[in-house]
């Protein structure tokens, strides 16, 4: 059994590599994009608000799997062709930025109006107000929701199989089909659990650091 597991691990770790790279790239790009989406929604520019609302509606209103398929197989029809990996990253970033945007919007809106007044009285420019007062407090508020979303993302990365990318779950399925055994899938489950445990701990640490008013 130990021998079998050690023979399985290289393939699973190769899959894990794709899983992690999709995961990190999505986070790195979708969080900042999410902040922009949130700010866009809260801006006074009516058309921008409408565009953001529409974008969020589409991204949250259709399955991520469908979005990946659309970008990979649909866009080439109008002459825009992406490679497999960029397709996956693009779809994930666009999708997760919509969710993050809504989380950040909620966080920003939950900050008391008085804070803006106080900042104005103290002579802060609007940019400085966001930078030094609103966003730092927002981060504290949104951390638990972001943690939720990030953990969902780890598991969602399995969807990249649809463009033929081999990730962790697919690697497990391949081994399971080849050996007619459930062991590879159990291993995959354990790897996902380890990933989630690491993330949960990391976010707990972050929350502790941000709990400076308690």
């Amino acid at each position, binding site marked *: 059994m130990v021998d079998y597991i050690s023979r399985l691990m290289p393939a699973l770790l190769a899959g894990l590599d794709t899983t992690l790279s999709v995961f990190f790239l999505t986070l790195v790009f979708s969080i*900042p994009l999410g902040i922009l989406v949130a700010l866009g929604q809260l801006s006074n520019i009516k058309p921008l608000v409408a565009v953001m609302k529409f974008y969020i509606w589409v991204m949250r209103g259709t399955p991520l799997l469908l979005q990946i398929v659309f970008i990979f197989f649909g866009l080439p029809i109008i*002459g825009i*062709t992406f490679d497999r990996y*960029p397709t996956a990253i*693009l779809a994930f970033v666009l999708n997760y930025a919509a969710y993050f945007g809504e989380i950040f919007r909620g966080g920003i809106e939950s900050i008391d109006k008085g804070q803006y007044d106080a900042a104005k009285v103290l002579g802060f420019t609007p940019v400085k107000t966001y930078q030094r007062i609103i966003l730092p407090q927002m981060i504290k508020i949104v951390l638990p929701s972001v943690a939720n979303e990030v953990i969902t993302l780890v598991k969602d990365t399995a969807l990249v199989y649809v463009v033929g990318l081999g990730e962790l779950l697919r690697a497990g399925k391949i081994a399971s089909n080849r050996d007619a055994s459930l062991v590879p899938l159990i291993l995959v489950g354990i790897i996902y659990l380890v990933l989630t445990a690491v993330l949960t701990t990391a976010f707990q640490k972050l929350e502790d650091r941000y709990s400076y008013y308690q």
Partner: protein
Amino acid sequence: MKIGIDKSALTLYHIKVIKRLRNKRKGEEEMRNNITKLILIMLILAFGVVSLAGCSNQTANQAPSQTSNQEETSAGEDSFEKIKERGYVIMGLDDTFAPMGFRDENNEIVGFDVDLAKEVFNRNDLELVLQPIDWTMKEAELNAGNIDMIWNGYTITAERREKVAFSKPYLKNRQIIITLADSDINSKADLEGKKVAAQAGSTAVDAMYTEPDVVATFDGGEPVLFDTNNEAFMDLEAGRSDAVVADEVLARYYIKLKGEEKYKVLSEDFGDEEYGIGFRKQDKKLLELVDSTLDAMRKDGTFDAIYNKWFAD
């Protein structure tokens, strides 16, 4: 009077807060500065992703190893000259599909179809690039030009003939009925009131429905469908299903893996079928090349050697 008390209380509270804030360690101030920096960096990256999206569009077209340009296929031309020029053929396969094409423990794609294809293109001085795809997307991948052929236990059916051009059949296959060794099912008639499992989207399902009156007698009036044959077999083993209908080639592979004494294969089946290789309809030259090379391999015994490597007992 009352107001005065409130005011002073409020002021006292404020003084406390201010003191507390003043006493805060410097570290927190620094941390907040760091957050601000972090946010700024993220905003810059966000603009980056937008431009990256624009760039990768171009790079995608420049990277011939993965995705070929759309125009290549929509023009409807035979792409054989282009394939010869670039020196390789892209074969699309489901890398979960043992024993036709799957990954071994070293993560290399192997299998009966893979060995056949390697030999075919070796003889024609073309390199073979194996591209894993999602099986439900196979025809879309082919017609988008992402792959040049579907070669992975691909059964020839009338519906598929409308979308792709098939090679000559290279392997015969039956849809067999498998039960546990101690089952009292011995014929199709015995399937009445029983749970019958199969892989969703497989030709086993189509084959069963060529005899709708038999399907109607199943428990529930339809087969139980699973994502993979492996799952159908596990369900049989768990005793929830009474029989599995599957490609003989695949089923024999699983039976061998799980132990031949556990299963019984009925003498009756759901009909014959044939595996072929799928090409884009306009790619006649590539199709003819593969057909003639396979014929030659049959004559000189190479085909049988590869067959025996994968299917001989």
